[in-house]
């Protein structure tokens, strides 16, 4: 189980490429999750009972779709979405192609995180804003998002880390990335050196992201 340093040097270019691929996958899918998941999560919250855009049908439909996507195992989603991936990216292999499935998985995941974060806001603060005569848009922009800021940042951290774990499976459709490298070399070929190196890279990456998330959340919270 010893580490062969020559092996690391030999495969270093490949590790670099894999790292870069991981960043692409996380970057794209996180971006999509933020752009679509955030409004979706807000919608889930404000259409719920007793809130200012209360709308049972809309709330149920979104909640139902979110639950469906979240219940499908990621590896199945990955394969099932190959036609969609082809349609959007024009290819089914590579990190950009894998980002399609990752995004689809990340949207409902993040939407639920946003909804939960908003639920933690004291209802009284929202009510005070309603009493002041604020528009729904103002309440979202100036009350909901600022008040949930710290937990939203924690939620983004959680999403990124989950995406790193998911992206390891992207190798199934040729997505590449660090996790894929660990599986291909370390798991299938019993290359302990590569496995240990890639796992260490992943551990360091996750630690850094978690710490950065915690730090930012704490820094921005005015409570």
């Amino acid at each position: 189980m010893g580490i062969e340093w020559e092996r690391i040097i030999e495969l270093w270019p490949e590790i670099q490429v894999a790292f870069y691929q991981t960043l692409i996958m996380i970057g794209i899918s996180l971006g999509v999750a933020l752009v679509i998941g955030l409004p979706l999560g807000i919608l889930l919250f404000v259409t719920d009972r007793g809130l200012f855009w209360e709308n049972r049908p809309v709330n149920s439909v979104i909640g139902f779709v979110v639950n469906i996507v979240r219940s499908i195992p990621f590896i199945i989603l990955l394969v099932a979405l190959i036609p969609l991936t082809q349609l959007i990216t024009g290819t089914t292999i590579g990190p950009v192609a894998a980002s399609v499935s990752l995004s689809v998985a990340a949207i409902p995941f993040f939407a639920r995180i946003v909804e939960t974060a908003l639920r933690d806001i004291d209802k009284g603060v929202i009510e005070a804003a309603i009493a002041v005569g604020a528009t729904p848009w103002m309440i979202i922009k100036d009350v909901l998002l600022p008040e949930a800021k710290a937990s939203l940042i924690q939620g983004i951290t959680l999403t990124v880390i989950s995406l790193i774990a998911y992206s390891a499976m992207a190798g199934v459709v040729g997505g590449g990335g660090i996790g894929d490298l660990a599986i291909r070399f370390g798991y299938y070929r019993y290359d302990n050196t590569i496995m240990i190196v890639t796992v260490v890279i992943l551990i360091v990456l996750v630690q850094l992201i978690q710490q950065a998330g915690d730090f930012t959340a704490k820094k921005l919270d005015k409570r």
Partner: protein
Amino acid sequence: MIQIEQLSKTYQTKHGTVKGVDDVTLEVKTGEIFGIVGYSGAGKSSLIRCINLLERPTSGTVKVGGQDLTKLRGDGLRKARLKIGMIFQHFYLISQKTVAENISFALRAAGTPSKNIGPRVDELLEMVGLSDKRGVYPAQLSGGQKQRVGIARALANDPAVLLCDEATSALDPNTTLSILRLLKDINRKLNITIVLITHEMNVVKEICDRMAVMQSGRVIEEGRVYDIFADPKTALTKEFISSVVSFNVPEEILKKCDGTIVKVLFKGEVAGDGIISDMLQSYPVKGNFLHGAIEYIQELPLGIFVMELKGSQTDVSQAIHYLEQREAIVEVIDHGN
């Protein structure tokens, strides 16, 4: 200013329907401070929240400035709320925004041009005495200061009405007093109609002109604060009053008395007069003070004395009759032996 007519609010719970507010009709006049007193669960919070339709009444109407709010929805209701300020027991400031941002939030809701926002925020902060806290976050403020920010936010758009939902219940007695003074000041200076709900009778005694007492969703007593203090009709009201003005003579003392024990109440101008000494001179009755004080309610004196009257039955009842002629309210507590 505010007309509440036959307002009811029922809630559906797991255990059936609960009447929060039960057929309440009230009128609050322009410029007055109106207090609604009751224990928790009496429905006063539901009632005040129905005034700006934070809760939609199940039936009945709420008119503010002549406009029937129950007919409004969406943007119309939002615009009507700009003219009804509200402050809360737990302040409910946006914790992630500074004091100035919390106030400007209200101004932006009314569509105030951005060049006017800064000066108006300064003006409001000066009014509530927090000019030095402009850029501070709520977490760094004391309870009283948070409530002052709440007041500034509520007054931002020059409302005609200010609703206070247990606004001083989370504050210590000294802070309570300073907030009440501020509210009274605002009421006098800006002629804002204030409706407040509270379970603390001293709040009502301190600043309210008129009051209502609520129990199980209903208004059981209503009138001028002074009149209600002088002559409470219901047991609950008496209980509330005794929490601030207590004239209970210890049992031990009462046992030792063998004369007629009376509680004598003097209202307004007559409170300071020597009516009692006149009585003692005019009738062969001996008077013995057991308890007494002059309370000031809205600067009007209210004299309350508990005394023992000794003499023949006829003389005592004549003396009591004399007091009543002189506009005192006499309540016989014990007829004696």
